[in-house]
């Protein structure tokens, strides 16, 4: 059926013929999968649709006008920055408009006041390069080098460098948000002037509307412009080296150095992170999944399995690493001081430094997310939590236990408890659990595992960050609140009474479970007879 002709014509009058289309071939290019984040899973198969039309606005004003027309003609729409976030960032209902934000790519940098202003189409690695040219840096993390700065900061936006630079919501400054009905909200200092230098503005802090703990995947409006705080970095150039695929940034060893330490136990690993945080040293402190080391060593997918296939539960259980990035932010002397302190801490814990490359492939201008698909052709992070260091590490162990029940179809990882690291100088511990599977096999077990992780978090009192948009809201909401779901739905109704903005998020995972026969066997929570939202199909 497509979008009503009158609505299409009105949209075309905003951007011109060149930047809107309902051509089937062009729209097919915006299909979500089958390859994607959550590749081949039930959610991708059941919940994603090809857009009926695609529009590419150039300015905030155009976005406002598009959204107003969508409201006038009841056209559902989804904002789309790069599409890397898989099914959650694609059309979910028939006759939907996809608003591709890539042309909002304006960029300004204020060197003196240390912030950059980016449009939704600006990605991470150019921003980081522009910042580093001027002796500053930033962390966007999450989706990596090619992911939208704005989308990542309102979604996740962390990396091992968050040990020092902190969580993303602290770096979001003045921001423009087009609400689901087209009204423009200016946040932070933009609310009272043209300078976006500061994140706080008069009245309630509406940054919660953007992301809360993590974001709501575009169901509460569209961010068109954001000022991002930049922080001081060391001054020397990181030199690009190599020909793809073996490229890296050579680190100036007098100012930057990764050091891997093998530590004797899990307890020592946590203790090391605490002590490094207490000493207020290092730019990054992390323990990554051990199979990432095999990815880094392997020349191809097949070689990865050669390397990883030699591991077993004992080798994984008894191998503990702490990976530390030292940065001489202020001077070489500071770097030496940090290294001496680090060596003292690690020696006291009985740890040994291991050979480490004098380069960075993954974290400074990137989060090497795309490499995660090499092994299996699929990947998703089912969950991440930010807790205390000691609690966060337990989260990974619970996960590893649960995962055993679902392996296969999940990839064998021999009980590796996932990704674990220090945030904000050890004041927080981060745990992320990543899973991989063969997307060409029956993935029902992965769909089940996804939801079972929520039940595990509820049972063991872990504070998951993927509440609304990634799990059934009627499963998680009553437990995290106890009326979190009602509160979230009221916010949605207030700001988007027609639910035109990315329906049926935040009830999408609930809808998925209802539609999918294979999910019924694990559905043991209450839902209303009819979900409280307008029906779009």
């Amino acid at each position, binding site marked *: 059926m497509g979008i009503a002709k009158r609505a299409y014509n009105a949209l075309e009058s905003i951007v011109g013929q060149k930047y809107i289309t309902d051509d089937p071939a062009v729209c097919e*290019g915006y299909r979500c*999968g089958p390859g994607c984040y959550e590749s081949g899973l039930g959610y991708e198969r059941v919940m994603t649709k090809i857009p009926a039309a695609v529009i*590419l606005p150039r300015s905030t004003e155009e976005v406002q006008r598009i959204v107003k027309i969508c409201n006038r003609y009841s056209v559902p729409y989804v904002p789309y920055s*790069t599409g890397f976030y898989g099914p959650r960032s694609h059309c979910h209902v028939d006759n939907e408009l996809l608003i591709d934000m890539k042309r909002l790519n304006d960029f300004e940098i204020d060197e003196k006041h240390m912030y950059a202003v980016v449009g939704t189409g600006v990605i991470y*690695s150019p921003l980081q390069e522009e910042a580093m040219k001027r002796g500053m840096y930033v962390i966007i993390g999450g989706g990596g*080098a090619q992911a939208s700065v704005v989308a990542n900061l309102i979604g996740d936006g962390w990396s091992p460098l968050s040990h020092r630079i902190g969580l993303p919501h602290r770096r979001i400054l003045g921001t423009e948000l087009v609400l689901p009905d087209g009204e423009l909200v200016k946040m932070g200092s933009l609310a009272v002037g043209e300078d976006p230098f500061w994140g706080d503005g008069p009245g309630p802090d509406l940054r919660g509307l953007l992301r809360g703990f993590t974001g709501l995947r575009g169901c509460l409006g569209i961010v068109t412009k954001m000022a991002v705080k930049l922080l001081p970095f060391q001054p020397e150039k990181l030199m690009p080296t190599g020909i793809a*695929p073996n490229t890296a940034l050579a680190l100036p060893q007098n100012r930057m150095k990764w050091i891997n330490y093998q530590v004797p136990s899990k307890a020592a690993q946590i203790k090391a992170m605490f002590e490094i945080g207490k000493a207020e040293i290092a730019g990054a402190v992390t323990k990554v999944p051990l199979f990432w080391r095999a990815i880094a060593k392997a020349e191809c997918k097949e070689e990865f399995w050669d390397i990883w296939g030699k591991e077993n539960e004992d080798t994984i259980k008894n191998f503990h690493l702490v990976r530390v990035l030292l940065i001489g932010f202020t001077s070489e002397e500071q770097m030496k001081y940090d290294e001496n302190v680090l060596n003292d801490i690690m020696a006291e814990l009985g740890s040994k430094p291991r050979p480490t490359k004098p380069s960075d492939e993954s974290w400074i201008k990137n989060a090497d*997310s795309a490499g995660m698909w090499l092994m299996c052709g699929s990947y998703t992070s089912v969950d991440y939590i930010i807790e205390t260091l000691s609690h966060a590490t337990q989260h990974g162990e619970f996960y590893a236990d649960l995962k055993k029940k679902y392996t296969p179809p999940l990839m064998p990882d021999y009980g590796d408890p996932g990704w674990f690291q220090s945030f904000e100088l050890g004041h927080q511990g981060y745990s992320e659990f990543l899973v991989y599977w063969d997307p060409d096999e029956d993935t029902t077990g992965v769909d089940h595992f996804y939801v079972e992780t929520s039940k595990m978090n509820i049972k063991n009192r872990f504070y998951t960050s993927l509440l609304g948009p990634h799990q059934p809201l009627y499963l998680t909401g009553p437990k995290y609140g106890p009326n979190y779901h009602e509160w979230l739905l009221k916010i949605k109704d207030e700001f988007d009474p027609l639910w035109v903005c990315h329906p049926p998020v935040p009830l999408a995972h609930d809808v998925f479970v209802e539609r999918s026969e294979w999910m019924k066997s694990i559905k043991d929570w209450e839902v209303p007879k009819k979900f409280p939202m307008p029906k779009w199909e």
Partner: protein
Amino acid sequence: MPTTHFSLDIRKLDNFAYDMSKCIKCKGCYWVEHTYMPGVRFSTRCPSNTWNDFDAYGAFGKMRIGMAIMEGKLKWTPKLLEIIYADPLCGACDVGCKRNLDLEIGLSLEAMRVKAVQDGAGPMPAHKKVAQNIAKHHNQFGAPHENRKKWLSADLKVADKADLLYFAGCQASYVTPEIAKAAAKVLNASNTPFMLMPDEWCCGNTLFSVGMLDEARDLARRNIEAVKATGAKTVLLTCAEGYRMWKVDYPKLLNIATTDLGFNVVHLVEFADEAIKKGSLKLSKSVDVRLAYHDACGISRLADPWTPYSGERGWMGTVNPRLKRRRGTHGLYAQPRNILAAIPGVTFVEMPRTRENSFCCGAGRGTKEAFPELASFSAKHRLEEVREVGAEALVSACPWCKSNFSQAVREQGDTIKVMDIAELISASVGP
């Protein structure tokens, strides 16, 4: 675990079903790789998707479209043909993907064009005209065949018999003869005897690139036999498109390995780099110019040798036997830079996008014929980088690049001098 048989044969689009279906839209095919990301300006490496912003014009969109074509879900329309053919197949997407995912993006794109031809929808009318020209005149411009060696002036020494055969190609024979002359002069200056093909015909690059495999294969067989008949041990080219065709796509068309051709294929930059190192080619004359070098796709990221592959894909997508992926790592990146460093007077400056991250000139593989506006856009976009680094001249190693950049410079009324590296070397070896 069941396995699926597949090969790297582009005649069957479903050989690439795995590759097309596993694209995750990371867009590493579109953006310059993060390590070399120069900043907000010059941040993309895909000409097609920089020219047209819709995702369909990027490899990530085309992989989804390719799946839909394979499954019969999309009808051939003028728009679909534009999506498939408005693309210089420059390989930027392929090397981008192979940094992380190792999907066969380049071969998938070629297979889509073959499918378009098999279905009677492709190629574009302009390509059919090229095919007619080649059939009738043995060159793609429809120029008289007897003029092919008109570039050969009396001062150039050509042997009747030699180990080295110089294949000038259509572009340098008819459009940019100064490149063929310069190459011959360089060979003479190094005292390297060379011969020409007794009756040189088009290499078939455009035919192959637009999916006309039968016609391209006939030319491949004819040209390979013609070289073998001369007894030459090495075929030398100055055309990057031709180099790729001889080294990679002739073997691909004939289902043999590059090493099975029976002779070596080299580009002038390989020859000259080696000759300079050995001392047989002396660059003594100063060429006072501040220049930038453009990595032509055919001798850089598309230049890895070809080996046929047929095998089984199984659990987690692993393949058996092992597949040595072509990732563009064997491109001729160092040789031209070595040469430029050896020419007295030259000030060489790198552009923001170099080597495997270069932004294609946009002329190759049937693009300039069918989508001249894309070729013009791409060249003009690249020329902005030349201005950015303050170079007076832009040097490449392909007559297609030279021709396209020269036209863009003329259209813009600019003063940037566009040269082929053969001309530069020639200028340095003396009068």
